[in-house]
């Protein structure tokens, strides 16, 4: 198995970081940063760098969630809705119910974990395809968020939670700090623990994983639970940023999260994934969006640009992969 995994790494990846980070992604990111620095006088500044990290934090954490699931050849289409559901549950727990502020964190994570666990159970035990289960959860979680709030954002969170979204110790936005910390922790989990390695093995070859004694079903449930929990964390940050539990929060974020993972070099069909790669993928989109915004390029063109960059990055990867094989 170890040889299979090693073979999927290409000569152009940075092995020192312990995962399949595509050099192409990093190059694309650097080119964007250089180009946009020349194009806009407002782009290259520390405050704008923090601004980009802040803007990327929620979607980036969702990207990490997707990375784990896709690593094991799964898919989670529900992360955007679970984000909204968790944001709402979190806001209600401290606002309408009036629990102390730590419960906002706890309830967001639990709400996310709960949705994720249901996804995992239905996929692993009831043998329903992941696409179907998580598509179902996309509807159920969003609907539940709307029902719980009657469609209205739940405004007003305790000060410590608002700080989590809007605080700036030493000028650094708290969500950006959380984002980077989560990236580091989940990167180590995916690249250096048995939990992460098993996920990659399952994604690479499920039959082989079973043959080597990996409890594939149990592992799947854990992976989807992790994905849900990270979506819950993203929901908490979202709510904290806008100081309210918005039931429409995170609508259609699932596709952006998957895009971040793919841009970062994660193989959509499993077996190869890297959290740092996803971080770079999310930053490519964040930098591109920020730069185009500073240049006042219409949001219509921005969607085209991101779509084109995605295809370009994967195309470069294909060429490189083909060369590595031959």
């Amino acid at each position, binding site marked *: 198995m170890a040889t299979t995994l090693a073979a999927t790494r290409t000569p152009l990846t940075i092995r020192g970081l312990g995962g399949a980070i595509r050099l192409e992604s990093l190059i694309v990111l650097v080119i964007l940063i250089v180009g946009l620095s020349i194009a806009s006088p407002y782009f290259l500044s520390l405050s704008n760098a923090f601004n980009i990290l802040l803007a990327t934090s929620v979607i980036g954490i969702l990207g990490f969630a997707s990375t784990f699931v896709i690593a094991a050849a799964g898919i989670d289409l529900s992360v955007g809705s679970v984000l909204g559901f968790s944001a709402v549950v979190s806001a209600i727990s401290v606002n309408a119910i009036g629990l102390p502020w730590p419960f906002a964190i706890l309830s967001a994570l639990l709400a996310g974990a709960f949705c994720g666990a249901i996804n995992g159970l239905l996929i692993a035990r009831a043998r329903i395809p992941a696409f179907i289960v998580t598509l179902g959860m996309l509807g159920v979680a969003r609907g539940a968020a709307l029902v719980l709030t009657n469609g209205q954002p739940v405004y007003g969170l305790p000060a410590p939670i608002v700080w989590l979204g809007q605080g700036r110790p030493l000028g650094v936005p708290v969500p950006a700090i959380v984002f980077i910390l989560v990236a580091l922790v989940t990167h180590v989990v995916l690249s250096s623990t048995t939990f992460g390695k098993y996920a990659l093995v399952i994604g690479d070859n499920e039959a082989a994983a079973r043959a080597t004694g990996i409890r594939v079903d149990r592992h799947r449930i854990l992976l989807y639970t992790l994905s849900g929990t990270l979506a819950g964390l993203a929901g908490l940050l979202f709510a904290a940023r806008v100081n309210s539990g918005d039931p429409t929060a995170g609508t259609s974020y699932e596709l952006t999260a998957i895009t971040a993972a793919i841009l970062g070099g994660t193989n959509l069909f499993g077996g190869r994934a890297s959290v740092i790669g996803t971080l770079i993928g999310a930053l490519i989109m964040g930098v591109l969006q920020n730069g185009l915004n500073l*240049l006042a390029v219409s949001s219509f063109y921005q969607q085209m640009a991101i779509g084109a960059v995605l295809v370009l990055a994967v195309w470069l990867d294909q060429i490189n992969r083909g060369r590595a094989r031959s």
Partner: protein
Amino acid sequence: MKNKALTIASTLVLGLGLATGAQAADAPVYGVLLKTLSNPFWDAMAKGIAEGGHEQGVTIFQEAAQSDQDAETQLNLCNTMLERSPKALIAAAINSSNLLPCMKSANQVNIPVVDLDANLDPAITAKAGVKVAFSIGSDNTQAGAKAADFMAQHLGASASGPVLVIEGLPGNVTGQMRANGFKAELAKVAPGLKVVASLPGDWDAGKAANITNDILQRNPNLAAIFACNDTMALGAVESVFADGRGGKVTVVGVDGTVDGVKSIKAGRLTATVAQLPYLEGIEAVANVKKVVEGQSVPSVIHVPTLVLTKEVLTQGTNPDLKYVK
């Protein structure tokens, strides 16, 4: 192969840089943040703002989210906009809370904030400690009431029958105000017309068409439909015509979009309470310039609305018609 592709990519980005690098920045810059551009209402607003900028001699730096539900993206856009240090911030928030952190940052550096199209909830805004220079928009409750007045006049005050209300996106204040304004006024001016269903059409023509189909099954004698925007009204009116009941059901929308006007002229949509986003855009820029220059303006500015019917459109005498785009 790879190097070639990268060369192309970098050339493109650098080319973009050279093309836009030299921006003239003599006139003061006003930042404008809209909900989305893929909607005729906001498109007209954007044009009005551009015209306002032209009239007042200011440069307009305008951004919009990709969809009118993209609350976080809009907040990110707003933060990015502040990086350019505009002299004023004119923002149409996607909901009552998403832009408050950014508006607070604007307050801290003394950039006046305008609540464009009145999307903020004054109570929440005050609680968040955000100061808004003024709020500008149509009176949405009044717009709903005007639709009810028109219906009573069109069908007769003694008319009776079931009425369908198609609301906006659940939780959206604008939609709620229009729907509530309509219902309250209708009960007053035409008590015989009963609202039998009030359902959210999510501002979507397809959803509104489905709702109309369903209600026509239940209430074949439906007398009238009030939809909280024109997009939904058009979906509803098409369903009515497809059902062979064209002309028998009075359908009224709100907004006065290009398509709405076309439909009225074609004898399909009965009427629309037209908002005048073009005028609103002009007024917003003119008033915020006064604020920047230290003059005082009212804290709430109402832009008039106009009931458009086939008659009003063919006569073409109403002076406000020039703002209908």
